[in-house]
């Protein structure tokens, strides 16, 4: 029983962490609360579903298709929204309001094209075999979700911590002006951040669509709330905090459903959030005045 809960917590937490990682990257580097991240998450799920249903892709190529589509969405987001607003030195909240507009547009487009009903992946595309480890049966699908989430996180962490690009990225997060003076291509890096963060959000969308086997136009909304919760619990703009916060929330939810009751699920997540806000508003790992990536 407990082992099964651990597997569930890991797969749900992995998806939360992946989503929050993209959200916190845009927050930390571009200093924007990207309220379109939930919509991009939803676009990722629809792109994979469309690839499977219409082009008969198998699961892995479908995930790549989703990455491509959401990456393109991230490119558009920076090129047409964030970059012009940066150039005009718009006030703090302007990009955030613009992303509300983007979220409304994307949701409306998807709803118009695919309809508002709940769509599913065909049964034969999902791996249904299980792996028996001692007394525990592990679903291959869960395992794949966990592995893919961990892989992407590992790559991201390595890039940010150890590569020259990551160093430049951290420099931009600290001070775009100083980074530009040192010869860093700031605009290029910000564009790349938006693309990569959107890809992470898109993959999270595909994974949650597989996990719950349901895809609907407003699926990004609750996820966005959870992403905000994770980022606050973990510490805002902090990559490590987003990862730990994601798994933390995943486990908290799974254990609440298993041992307390499913109607308390959201209450626990936001109860945690509220206590963090009151006691340590900068989050468990955050330092409010600084931005960290």
């Amino acid at each position: 029983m407990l082992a099964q809960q651990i597997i569930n917590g890991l797969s749900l937490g992995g998806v939360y962490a992946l989503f929050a990682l993209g959200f916190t990257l845009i927050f930390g580097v571009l200093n924007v609360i990207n309220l379109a991240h939930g919509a991009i998450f939803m676009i990722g799920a629809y792109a994979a579903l469309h690839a499977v249903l219409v082009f008969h892709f198998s699961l892995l190529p479908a995930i790549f298709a989703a990455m491509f589509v959401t990456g393109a969405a991230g490119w558009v987001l920076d090129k047409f929204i964030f970059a012009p607003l940066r150039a005009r030195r718009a006030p703090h909240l302007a990009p955030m309001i613009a992303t509300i507009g983007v979220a409304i547009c994307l949701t409306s487009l998807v709803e118009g094209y695919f309809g508002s009903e709940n769509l599913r992946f065909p049964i034969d595309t999902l791996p249904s075999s299980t792996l028996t480890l001692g007394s525990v049966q592990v679903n291959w699908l869960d395992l794949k979700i966990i592995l893919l989430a961990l892989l992407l996180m590992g790559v991201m962490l390595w890039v940010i911590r150890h590569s020259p690009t990551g160093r430049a990225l951290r420099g931009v997060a600290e001070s775009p002006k100083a980074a530009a003076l040192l010869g860093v291509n700031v605009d290029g890096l910000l564009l790349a951040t938006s693309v990569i963060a959107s890809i992470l959000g898109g993959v999270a969308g595909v994974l949650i669509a597989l996990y719950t086997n349901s895809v609907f136009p407003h699926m990004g909304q609750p996820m966005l709330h959870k992403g905000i919760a994770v980022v606050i619990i973990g510490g805002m703009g902090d990559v490590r905090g987003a990862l730990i916060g994601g798994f933390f929330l995943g486990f908290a939810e799974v254990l609440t459903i298993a041992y307390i009751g499913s109607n308390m699920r959201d209450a626990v997540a936001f109860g945690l959030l509220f206590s963090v806000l009151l006691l340590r508003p900068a989050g468990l790992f955050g330092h409010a005045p600084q931005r960290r990536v």
Partner: protein
Amino acid sequence: MEWLDSFWSTYSTFVLATGTNVLLALSIYVTLACGLLSVANAGFMAIGAYSAVLLTLRTGTPLPIALIVGAIAAAMVALLIGVPTLRLSGVYLAMATLAFGEVVRILILNAENVTGGALGLNGIPQLVGLFDVVFSVTVALYVFLRLAQSRVGRTITAISQDEIATELMGLNVRAYKLVCFVVGAALAGLAGALNAHFTFFISPNEYGFERAVEILAMGVIGGVSSPWGAVLGGSLITALPELLRGMGRYRPLINGGILIIIILYSPKGLWDGLQTVLRRPRR
């Protein structure tokens, strides 16, 4: 006067909603003008609405008292959470207050025996008329317009421009911020209490995340250079879905597109954009 009657019977809810939305826009204007990016107003609106409705519905309290209690309840909560959260600044405060709104919604959702949970509260007496709304908006607008010209208003502008410099002038920045936060909450609570008494029905989901960002959009689209910006933003956000009624199922798409275009071409708000256009010298 027959056309007036028919106009009123069709559009009364729309007119009243415009009024309460202008109040909400003013409530976020207060905090934005002080440089606080607070997005907690949907939560304060919920607190005002629920405390006022519980009074009128369960105990038959007269409307004015219920309205005042609604505003005060929201202000008390703001005082309580303002002290720890106002330590945060900028986008961090926005995130924290966004989460606060969600916490309020979840609490209301789970306190079923008091608030009716997800089903909400039904059959709220229709006590609010045009007078109540117009009166509240006029008073709030008058006070803010006068304040903007006063020493207090200038201090608030100074805080939004340079907090440290204002502090060094010997002004109590934290107190000013807290007062702005509390006044904004009281206004949002009042707007919630008013709004609940002409819609028959309230439920926690009306005061969620979407409402929070909608209120913020009113404030930012109108702009914070003048209280008139809030009036403009509140009216526009209320009217836009009505004006786009003919667009069918792609209506939200156009709504969102307009939002993006306004932000891209007039990032400091419509009121500010209007002023620059009008002041441009003619040749």
